[in-house]
């Protein structure tokens, strides 16, 4: 007979999926948006509250507001109604979400996530649901449902992995965005989305860095790039009449390891003599608005075109940013375009016309650099990256959101000698999210992030053990901000860097002094490092 001191129950199956009760625990939830941020943005119901409170202080007519909001969006977005109607619950998406894989919580299956809202849709917007209620898969809209929405819509990084597998193309990321948008109507937001949105709106970037601070950061980086190369490198700011406006995520100039990528851009632009400028007004590529609502996304995105117009540039070049590209690719043209005051982008160095950017007039830096390399316009010494054994994480938005798969790999293979892919079902369109995107990358939510990032880390661990990989490259500011923590926990010994950081290392610049360190100030590898049993490895 076995004695037990503590009675430990196996995890109860979460009974009926229609039961909306969720438990908010510290470490696995995001804090609510501070009232000052909602007030600044003119959003409803600013108040002091936290998800752990039993009373969320919803406005008295919250239910009416949500249902009216749903109706409005069902009429406005055909996709929304379609997504609500056509899911056949085939389950193809079910085991594709990194949050489901990491948490084993059945409500994190994408189909279940969508069902949170679909059940309310059925109850209030379909005839059978109105008559038969729960028999027809409908669910009453209660405060608990609102709490459940908050819990699970802020446990989705809008990464779209699930949509790749859905035979009907249902995009749960869109459903999450609409769910968050509805929550915004009654003031249920998270601070790590609303504070950056308010800051971006006020000063142009998510930390609220003011123009003089922006200039200081850029100048400081330019000095550092000059010191490393022995050349006089500058990055022009707000320069009217430049040919190109360059927009990057703000983390590139205030956070590490992003900062090394900024050095890389500067050196590249200097070497090819690019006629460009950055802007203090459009000093944030990242669009935190896209994590909360279409309206906020539009308001932030508009700054890029406005500034391009004011400065009179011909076209726009964009840096290593994640959601900036999703917004650009999917929404910018119809939302704030057409940008007919700009020209179709042409590389001033190679003459290549970027046909793909014919309508948005904005080119990804990886497209631009890959084109330079393809035309033999850069002198690259791959040996300068010999201390790195590189793999590449397809950041969700550039990969799935805009199909940028080959260019970063093409560049990496030209700037580094050791490059190894992670397993096939974890890269390219099937890439696993970092688990911290769409506003979830905040410290109070660390445990959820570690769970959601486990599938990604698991693949990194594999290439570390198999090939000795020690650098995970990526082209997204959120990745660079959050993957270091993730890897320190799951795969210590693998660092995170940007593609253009490695470009900066390898770039042989005209008149430069001999380099002894990389952009991080770390000593370059000596011959012996590569000789120790490792041959040149390239996996295209």
């Amino acid at each position, binding site marked *: 007979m*076995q004695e037990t001191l*503590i009675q*430990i129950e*196996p*995890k*109860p*199956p*979460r009974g009926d999926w229609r039961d909306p009760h969720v438990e908010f625990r510290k*470490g*696995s939830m995001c804090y609510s948006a501070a009232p000052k941020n909602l007030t600044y943005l003119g959003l409803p119901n600013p108040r002091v509250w936290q998800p752990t409170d039993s009373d969320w202080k919803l406005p008295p007519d919250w239910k009416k507001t949500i249902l009216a909001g749903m109706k409005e969006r069902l009429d406005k977005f055909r996709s929304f109604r379609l997504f609500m109607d056509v899911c056949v619950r085939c389950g193809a998406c*079910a*085991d594709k979400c990194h949050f*489901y*894989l*990491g*948490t*084993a*919580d*059945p409500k994190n299956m994408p189909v279940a996530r969508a069902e949170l809202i679909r059940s309310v849709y059925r109850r209030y917007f379909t005839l059978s649901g109105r008559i038969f209620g729960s028999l027809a898969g409908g669910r009453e809209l209660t405060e608990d449902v609102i709490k459940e929405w908050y819990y699970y819509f802020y446990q989705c990084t809008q990464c779209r992995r699930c949509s790749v597998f859905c035979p009907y193309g249902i995009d749960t990321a869109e459903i999450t965005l609409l769910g968050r948008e509805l929550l915004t109507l009654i003031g249920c937001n998270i601070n790590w989305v609303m504070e950056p949105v308010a800051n971006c709106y006020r000063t142009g970037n998510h*930390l*609220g*860095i*003011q123009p*003089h*601070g922006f200039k*200081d*950061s850029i100048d*400081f*980086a330019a000095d550092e790039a000059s010191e490393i190369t022995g050349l006089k490198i500058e990055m022009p700011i707000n320069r009217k009449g430049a040919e190109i406006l360059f927009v990057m995520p703000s983390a590139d*100039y*205030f*956070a*590490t390891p992003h*900062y090394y990528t900024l050095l890389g851009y500067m050196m590249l632009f200097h070497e090819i003599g690019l006629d460009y400028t950055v802007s203090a007004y459009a000093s944030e590529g990242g669009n935190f608005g896209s994590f909360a609502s279409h309206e906020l996304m539009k308001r932030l995105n508009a700054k890029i075109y406005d500034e391009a117009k004011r400065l009179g540039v011909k076209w726009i070049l964009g840096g290593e940013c994640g959601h900036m590209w999703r917004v650009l690719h999917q929404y910018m043209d119809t939302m704030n375009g057409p940008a007919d005051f700009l020209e179709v982008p042409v590389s001033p160095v190679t003459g290549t016309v970027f046909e793909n950017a014919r309508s948005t007039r904005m080119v990804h830096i990886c497209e631009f650099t890959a084109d330079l390399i393809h035309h033999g316009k850069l002198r690259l010494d791959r040996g300068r990256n010999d201390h790195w054994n590189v793999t590449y994480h397809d950041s969700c938005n550039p990969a799935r959101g805009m199909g940028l798969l080959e260019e970063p790999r093409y560049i990496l293979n030209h700037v580094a000698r050791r490059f190894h892919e992670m*397993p096939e*079902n*974890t890269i390219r369109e099937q890439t696993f999210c970092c688990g911290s995107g769409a506003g979830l990358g905040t*410290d*109070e939510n*660390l*445990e959820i992030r*570690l*769970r959601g990032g*486990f*599938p990604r880390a*698991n*693949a990194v661990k*594999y290439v570390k053990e198999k090939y000795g990989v020690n650098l995970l490259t990526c082209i997204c500011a959120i990745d660079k901000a959050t993957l270091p*923590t993730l890897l*320190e*926990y*799951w795969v210590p010994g693998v660092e995170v860097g940007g593609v253009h950081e490695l470009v900066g290392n390898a770039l042989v610049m005209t008149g430069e002094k001999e380099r002894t360190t990389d952009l991080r100030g770390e000593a370059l590898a000596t011959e012996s490092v590569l000789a120790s049993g490792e041959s040149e490895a390239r996996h295209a």
Partner: protein
Amino acid sequence: MSADRAIVERWVERVLQSYPAQTLPFLRGEQDPFRNPVGHTLRESLTILAGELMGKMDRQRIAQALDAIIRMRAVQDFGPSDAVRFVFDLRTAIREWGGAVPDSLESRIDELALLAFDHYMGCREQIFALRINELRLKARYAASEEGETP
């Protein structure tokens, strides 16, 4: 099926039971290690641990396998006791299979449980340290708002 194999299978099955019922068919059935990292890690770690406990007791292999499984359970929705309880499930698995747990194995299982708790605490402490580190970075970046550089 060899005796060892049968015991490991039972052990894995018992540990799987600590996850929500709707998720079990997937955790149990999906064999691809990258599609099913949780199920894969459990199976791989428990197989190694059982092999070592009933065999040579290679400390390093034990530490690695234990770390993989504990690291995972330390961030999932388990309290401390639930997170390390799987160690004792080996006993039950052996009994269920119809065997008796030899004294030598009894004490090895106890030792493993203690080790598991150390690893669990290590992971939790690391999580808090990582969180503090992120907070510190945030504060530093916020200072750059005042014009300081990174």
